[in-house]
């Protein structure tokens, strides 16, 4: 049994925002795959705002190279969306690997970000696409970089009266892009390690590199300084080894030495080499 609460089911974003600003101790229900699990484990709230009937929060559209994805889009909807697949195939892949088919039909991209698990598959691809998170409330709209939105594992900058309505990602046409993860099982598993990449090369030189590594640091991270330093360098063993070493140094600097690193560091090294070699 779930704890008792009263629910409201707004059919427009405006109504949802009005409820969030007026209802005491309200939680938002979208996919339910995190919220109801927490409730089964004893968390409670007085009100639930069910946003699953707000249809325009499922829209995916493109404008000037920016793709806007409604926060109530499910992992499955994202993984079969052709616009996203054309411009952000790492996100397509990652969303297609989340949980099981039922979880992908239920869990939403907005919920995934608000839950902010450090092992969430969507995070690394969203980071390489310079994702902005759109937060709306009755008082207005604010946009934040995904990196600034997630403060710590399971902790974000969202306020109780705010709704994550959309995310905006930059399309990366012309990049070699992908997502790979290492798990204990082939499927229905949580990532032990993950990597998203988008790389542009020309005449044997790296033109642009975007990398995000998941499940190694408290939050998936982009080694931006190292990405920058690789621009214009020749794609060869020497460049790759130096870059991999620097990234691993950075991981250890952020996380400290962890017991799991005996396993994780050699795996990250192999993944990075594979990705940079292409």
């Amino acid at each position, binding site marked *: 049994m*779930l704890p008792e609460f009263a629910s409201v089911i707004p059919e427009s974003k405006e109504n949802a925002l009005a409820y969030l600003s007026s209802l005491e101790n309200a939680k938002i229900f979208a996919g339910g795959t995190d919220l109801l699990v927490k409730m089964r484990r004893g968390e409670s709230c007085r009100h639930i705002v069910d946003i699953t009937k707000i249809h325009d929060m499922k829209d995916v559209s493109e404008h000037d190279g920016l793709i806007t994805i409604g926060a109530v889009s499910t992992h499955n909807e994202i993984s079969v969306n052709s616009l996203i697949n054309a411009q952000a195939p790492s996100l397509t892949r990652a969303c297609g690997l989340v949980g099981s088919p039922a979880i992908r*039909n239920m869990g939403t991209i907005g919920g995934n970000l608000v839950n902010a698990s450090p092992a969430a598959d969507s995070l690394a691809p969203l980071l390489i696409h310079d994702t902005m998170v759109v937060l709306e409330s009755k008082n207005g709209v604010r946009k934040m970089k995904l990196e600034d939105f997630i403060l710590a594992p399971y902790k974000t900058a969202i306020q109780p009266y705010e709704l994550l309505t959309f995310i905006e990602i930059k399309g990366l046409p012309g990049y070699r892009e992908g997502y790979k993860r290492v798990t204990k099982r082939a499927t229905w598993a949580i990532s032990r390690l993950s990597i998203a990449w988008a790389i542009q090369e020309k005449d044997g030189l790296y033109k642009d590199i975007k990398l995000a590594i998941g499940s190694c640091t408290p939050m998936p991270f982009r080694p931006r300084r190292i990405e920058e330093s690789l621009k214009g360098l020749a794609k060869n063993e020497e460049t790759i080894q130096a870059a991999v070493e620097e990234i691993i140094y950075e991981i250890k600097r952020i996380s400290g030495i962890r017991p799991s690193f005996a396993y994780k560091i050699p795996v990250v090294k192999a993944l990075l080499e594979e990705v940079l070699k292409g």
Partner: protein
Amino acid sequence: MKKIDFTLNGKPTLIEVEDNETLLQTLRERLDIKSIKEGCSIGECGACTVLIDNEPHYACLTLASKASGHDVKTVEFLGDAKLLHPLQEAFITYGAVQCGYCTPGMLLSAYSLLLKNQHPTDPDIKEAISGNLCRCTGYIQIVEAIRNAAGICKCNS
């Protein structure tokens, strides 16, 4: 209480539910559909799988109100002892049922797969049933049953 209006196994259904009621409770306790089971109740085992608009969902983590306006199917939609669906026949033929607890959910995940893909490979089948745990069979018989049923049944909703 909320009034919800949905299609259950092809029949229009209008019912009042509690705000904090899951679709699993509504189906089992109000509508007497006992085929779906409460296993883990946290979305891991798949014993409560139902199809919403022909896609698998865990009813234990679905608020009943979310079903409103949608098409919901349980294994009763496929067939019964008098007229079994080819998938159900195949589960019997290939020994894919032991204790039976996972079977309704397993059948629904398989049915959803066959609606989209009439010639699934074994990896397709394994992926489709990856959210349905079976502690008896070791899955081999289940995969065999689905593979063989795929050849003979034209699933249509």
